[in-house]
């Protein structure tokens, strides 16, 4: 009753709605989390049996024993290429195999040699090869320390919270049966007498000292409630395999800042969880989610990044089951003054963050990425799970979505609206109502009678469309897709072996088993133009509801005891959404014969989803808080590989004020995935519906996006090659600047653009931190120069989007904004050269066809642009690559320039010509008029 009351009160006070928290479990309500979290530190029963140690060149194995129950575990330790250590712990002899996550690692990681440095009865010291890095394995209790020199980088089981619930037989003895029957009868009676929704009663049930069976057991292990069956609200999880949770703690000495483990609507810097629930990773369709909360959302990436001024490291916990992450810190409670006091008194203990991971099933399989720089961690993680897919250029443009564009006529008039108001856009989207009765791969026969005609109309304007394809399949004997999946036995099964059925948009629906490669192959084949009727090459796909969302399932998702072949849904849950997107992206690739890059948006995701397309932050709301949190949410995803992230512009639920809508368009223009979306019950909000003044503001924001498309595109190319995030926190580029560690109201796009969007209602100004003692930053709108390492107050009006270009950078833009990105393909570039204090600058220029995989065949232009010693030059970075472009350089703008007497262009054929230029002395801006060389050519330009 109490929590309900509090929630009700909060609702009243804030005068707004919020998530119904009662629909989702707390740690206390999740039996394994409660069990594991109850363990006390410092009492580890695990001991390393050093005599069992075996070391081949690249692999060390060692048995661990739990002294309480004598169950043995097998520890495997690998040194992986690129400064990564992998630790696997499984039962030595499990009753049956435990789930190991497939299809997330892009390949079996390359191992490197390990060697024993020393060994005695207390432990073993291993060399990790590089930089005097060692691993110390302590025997009693088992503990693992990774050292560099005399510094401990990371310790495992240092708090003794390693726990591995071994698989066991259910004790079906006579006495067990009797007592358990009695117990369940008693439970039933209790249930009858207490209202079902009464959380008190549920809590009591869980808190009940377990059944009497315990006393009759031979082992001294406790049998707790929730080990073999668990009930939440009206749903019972049958748990035929019994308890199977795994957990391990990590200590990070010297670390006060940890990030990552998306998806949560929370701050960029993760908070300590001592006084509340742990961060939860369990892909869920959360209706109207709440901000600043560790509750699970639509996606999960079990990767945490730890950062200090000295080093950046990462932990990748490869487990797809429900997972909880506890974070505590010895400095968390301390004020700045307290820290100062410690420092002055010299009594300070080293700051340290302790982290603990708990998963419901599977094994412990961890990758410790040892950095040492942020970019090293990104490339280490990318070497394991792959990099961001390289999106078609058009998908970096603006997307117009709504639930729903009602019919072809509606699509046509919205499309025409963009032309009428001269606002560019690339994609228009169709939500679920476009289908014939929520049967995906079909079109409503009345509203979308001639989809090809519609798509052709868009193609004639060089625009594209996305239609939704969700993974729930309507149970309907007249629906081809359903019949095929059923007859092939491709559906997920319920615990009794029948096809799993749940309730979703179409009513009764079943869920294809995307964990099966044959199912995915079949699904992919459904995107062929002759299968998915009415489609053309400018139609792309959106996978929503792939957590999976099951309206009448426990926590609005699938029952954990549903089965995917040999595995329970429990084991694979967080992976389901990734598989859906994988099969869909494959379908789009295949339909083009492997030529065209796919574009697939997903709501659910997991480690590795970055390889498959874009992610959005789900069903947000038209509130300023949601606009604000879109920044840390996307930054968190970027840190763990997913760069192509965005939030619904304007907010999905509710209706934004005009000011909020405009500000969201402005902020979104500088986030990777730029899509407006709205709930079906909200009034229309196409950009031109708010008066000419606001239409102009939105037009300007979208146009700014389009001018920067060359920069976005080359950053995505970089992300695709290196794995570094496109949108990144400041500390990634300024890892020693403590002032940047918790910043989440501003960020960098690539290395060179700093964005501090206006996300407050009625704002008159923002204060942006410009990093870098020796840096200068140029306001991209006024060209005003500002020094680094300062907090700069910027007065703002409704048209302001504070953005700064770093001195020392060169950014290419296309200033001729047209009605879609494709229309701009052959347009010329303007190079923005921002000089630093040393009067140098550099940048890159990447060009390819924008939509095919031909870049893999080296069909691209990749150039290095450098300004030094008064010479600007373009040098080929990829001499073996071949591509030609019609684009040329129409203008060069040098910020922070001095006035030259002449500017001379020298082209590859040795010809020289003098160029005309303008010099604005008040702003020190030099504009070189129409140099005219091809964007793919070698050239130098001398400023004398």
């Amino acid at each position, binding site marked *: 009753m109490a929590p309900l009351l509090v929630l009700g009160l909060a609702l009243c006070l804030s005068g707004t709605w919020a998530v119904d928290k009662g629909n989702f479990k707390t740690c206390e309500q999740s039996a394994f989390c409660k069990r594991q979290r109850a363990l006390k530190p410092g009492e580890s029963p695990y001991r390393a049996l050093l005599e069992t140690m075996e070391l081949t060149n690249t692999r060390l194995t060692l048995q661990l024993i739990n002294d309480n129950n004598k169950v043995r575990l097998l520890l495997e330790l690998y040194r992986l290429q690129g400064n990564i250590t992998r630790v696997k712990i499984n039962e030595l002899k499990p009753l049956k195999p435990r789930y190991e996550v497939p299809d997330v690692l892009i390949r079996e990681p390359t191992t490197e040699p390990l060697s024993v440095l020393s060994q005695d009865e207390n432990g073993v010291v291993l060399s990790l090869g590089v930089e005097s890095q060692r691993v110390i394995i302590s025997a009693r209790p088992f503990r693992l320390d990774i050292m560099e020199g005399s510094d401990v980088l990371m310790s495992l089981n240092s708090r003794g919270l390693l726990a591995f619930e071994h698989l066991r037989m259910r004790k079906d003895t006579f006495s067990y049966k009797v007592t358990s029957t009695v117990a369940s009868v008693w439970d039933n009676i209790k249930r009858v007498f207490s209202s079902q929704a009464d959380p008190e009663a549920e809590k009591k049930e869980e808190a009940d000292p377990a059944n009497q069976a315990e006393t009759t057991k031979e082992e001294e292990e406790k049998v707790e409630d929730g080990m073999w069956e668990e009930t939440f609200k009206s749903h019972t999880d049958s748990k035929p395999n019994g308890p199977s949770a795994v957990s391990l703690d990590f200590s990070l000495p010297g670390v006060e800042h940890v990030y990552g483990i998306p998806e949560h609507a929370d701050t960029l810097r993760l908070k300590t969880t001592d006084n509340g629930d742990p961060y939860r990773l369990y892909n869920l369709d959360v209706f109207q989610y709440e901000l600043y909360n560790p509750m699970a959302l639509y996606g999960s990436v079990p990767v945490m990044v730890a950062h200090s001024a000295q080093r950046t490291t990462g932990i990748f916990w490869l487990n797809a089951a429900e997972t909880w992450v506890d974070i505590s810190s010895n400095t968390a409670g301390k004020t700045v003054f307290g820290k100062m006091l410690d420092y002055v008194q010299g009594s300070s203990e080293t700051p340290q963050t302790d982290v603990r991971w708990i998963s419901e099933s599977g094994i412990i399989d961890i990758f410790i990425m040892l950095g040492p720089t942020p970019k090293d961690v990104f490339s280490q993680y990318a070497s394991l799970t792959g990099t961001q897919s390289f999106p078609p250029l058009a998908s970096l443009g603006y997307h117009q979505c709504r639930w729903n564009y*009602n019919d072809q006529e509606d699509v046509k008039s919205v499309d025409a609206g963009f032309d009428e108001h001269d606002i560019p856009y690339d994609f228009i989207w169709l939500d679920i109502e476009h289908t014939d009765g929520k049967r995906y791969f079909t079109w409503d026969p009345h509203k979308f009678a001639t989809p090809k005609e519609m798509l052709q109309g868009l193609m*004639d304007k*060089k625009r594209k469309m996305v239609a939704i394809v969700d993974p729930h399949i309507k149970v309907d004997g007249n629906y081809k897709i359903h019949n095929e999946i059923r007859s092939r036995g491709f559906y997920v099964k319920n615990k009794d072996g029948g096809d799993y059925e749940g309730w979703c948009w179409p009513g009764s629906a079943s869920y294809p088993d995307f964990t099966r490669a044959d199912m995915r192959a079949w699904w992919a084949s459904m995107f062929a133009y002759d299968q998915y009727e009415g489609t053309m090459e400018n139609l792309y796909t959106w996978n929503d509801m792939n957590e999976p969302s099951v309206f009448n399932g426990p926590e609005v998702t699938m029952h954990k005891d549903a089965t995917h072949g040999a595995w329970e849904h429990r084991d694979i849950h967080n992976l389901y959404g990734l598989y859906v997107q994988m099969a869909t992206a494959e379908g789009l690739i295949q339909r083009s014969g492997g030529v065209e890059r796919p574009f697939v948006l997903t709501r659910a995701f997991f480690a590795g989803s970055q390889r498959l397309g874009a992610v959005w932050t789900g069903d947000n709301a038209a509130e300023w808080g949601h606009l604000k949190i879109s920044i840390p949410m996307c930054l968190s995803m970027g840190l763990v590989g997913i760069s192509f992230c965005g939030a619904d512009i304007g907010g999905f639920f509710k209706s934004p004020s005009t000011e909020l809508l405009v500000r969201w368009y402005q902020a979104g223009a500088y986030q990777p995935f730029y899509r407006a979306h709205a709930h079906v019950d*909200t*009034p229309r909000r196409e950009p031109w519906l708010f008066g000419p003044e606001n239409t102009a503001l939105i037009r300007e924001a979208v146009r700014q996006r389009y001018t920067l498309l060359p920069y976005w595109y080359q950053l995505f190319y970089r992300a695709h090659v290196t794995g570094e995030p496109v949108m990144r926190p400041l500390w990634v580029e300024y890892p020693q600047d403590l002032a940047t560690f918790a910043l989440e109201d501003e960020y960098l796009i690539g290395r060179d653009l700093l964005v501090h969007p206006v996300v407050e209602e009625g704002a008159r100004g923002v204060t942006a931190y410009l990093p870098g003692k020796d840096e200068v930053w140029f306001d991209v709108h006024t060209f005003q120069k500002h020094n680094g390492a300062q907090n700069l107050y910027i007065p703002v009006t409704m048209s302001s989007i504070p953005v700064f270009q770093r001195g020392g950078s060169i950014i290419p833009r296309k200033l001729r*904004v*047209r*009605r879609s990105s494709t229309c701009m393909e052959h347009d010329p570039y303007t190079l923005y050269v921002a000089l630093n204090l040393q009067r140098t600058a550099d940048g890159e220029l990447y060009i390819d066809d924008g939509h095919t995989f031909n870049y893999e065949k080296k069909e691209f232009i990749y150039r290095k642009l450098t300004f030094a010693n008064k010479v600007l030059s373009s040098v080929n970075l990829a001499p073996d690559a071949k591509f030609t472009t019609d684009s040329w350089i*129409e203008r060069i703008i040098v910020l922070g320039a001095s006035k030259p007497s002449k500017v001379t262009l020298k082209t590859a054929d040795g010809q020289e010509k003098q160029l005309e230029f303008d010099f604005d002395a008040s702003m020190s801006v030099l504009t070189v008029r*129409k140099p005219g060389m091809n964007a793919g050519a070698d050239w130098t330009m001398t400023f004398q």
Partner: protein
Amino acid sequence: WLLFLLLLLLSVGVSAVEVQRPRGVPLSKRQFYEEGKPFTCLDGSRTIPFDRVNDDYCDCQDGSDEPGTAACPNGSFHCTNAGFRPTFIPSSRINDGICDCCDTTDEYNSGATCQNTCRELGRKERESLQKMAEIAKEGFLLKQQLIHEANRGLEDKKAKLGDVQGSKKDLEAKVEALRTVKEAAEQPEREAKERHLKAWEESARMAEVFLELDDDADGFVSVPELLSHSELDPDADGSFTEAEAQGLLGGVDKVDTAAFESIWSNVKEKYMSESNADTPAPEETSREEINEPVSDNESDQYPDDDIPEDEDDDDEEDEDDDRDEHEYKIPPTARTEEKKDDDEGAMPPYDQETQNLIDGKNAFKTELFNFGFGICFRNLEKEISFDFGPSSEFAYLYSQCYELTTSEYIYRLCPFNRVTQKPKFGGSETNLGSWGKWAGPEDSIYSVMKYEHGTGCWQGPSRSTTVKLTCGKETVVTSTSEPSRCEYLMEFTCPAICQEPPNLEISSHEHQEL
């Protein structure tokens, strides 16, 4: 001939067969672009050599130096579109691979293969203009007829209203007579009622005063207790003596409630309450204030309108029931009044005599109501008061309904009344809005009707419908849609909106630019 062709091919940057001027410049601005002479940006900001006009680099802030290229972000390009209408397009559409000008002149260097469709478009436009003009013509004739009928109808109605007013006078006389009878009948009733009420109020006040005076709450009002109320001093000489107090109490030291009643007349006039809190006046006014708009509202509505619709047919909106219930609850003021009555329930029932009188009055009321002219009169008055357009041309729509059946629903537009939607295969009707107002743009206010305050939507506003009127011979609903949830759009043709066709002679633009 060959030479001519060659010349044509050579004249790059200049539209063929036309007066020589830079690409994208309209004839009207030709004089600003003089071949060979320096060009001054049209905003006067700077002057550039002529060879920088249309050289694919933006020199003028206003974009005027690049009318024929996409170089300036704010430029515009003029298509002559011989055979059709000349037009301007944003210069960003030049050579973007999409054919915008029907004469193909915007795509001179993009590789796009455009067909010159101007003649075809011109022909189609002329045809459709012709058709529209014919429709307009016929529609306009119909409209004249409608206006005529409306005026006659209006006169009829005014006459009728006059009649009614005449008979109203008769009736009023009758009513007056009856009223006399009624008042005569009511007089005793009112008096009895008043008597009864007064008596009740009097004793209530008496009790109150007694309790207030009885400071020590011993059930008696005594001389000392009375003395604290100097206003009761009989001779008002400033000294309220014990003797005087005793006199007020009828010569005794203290009185109980029964005795107090007998001396009440001595006290009641002068007594001043200790607490002045019991002033009901402000509450009374606030009640009236609330009452006002409610009754206003009621008079706005149709007599047969807004009967609560107990169920919403939209199956996604499970919570409609709650909402409807709430929405159709009796107005809050009415409820307050009910409650007030309850509170005052302490008042004893009327005595038999009063009750008889009241019953007699009700019988009389019924009789009066049976004349029924009230309603008729009000309807006529209401109809006359509608804005049926400048010449009452929309009057014929009044009390008519027009239906359109779609795949799912039957939509019904009853102009000046309401719009409804009913599922084709059973289910109850949903109100999509009641007549609100004419809502067209300022220059054609009668081109759009707005119907508002329909059945509410879950988590949303109440339904509303915008009806767009276009000229047509027939009066018919041609389409409906729901562009935004619960905001409906209806296309409606009728002759009443037709404008007088200017002149059937359609000017062809064919030669304008040559």
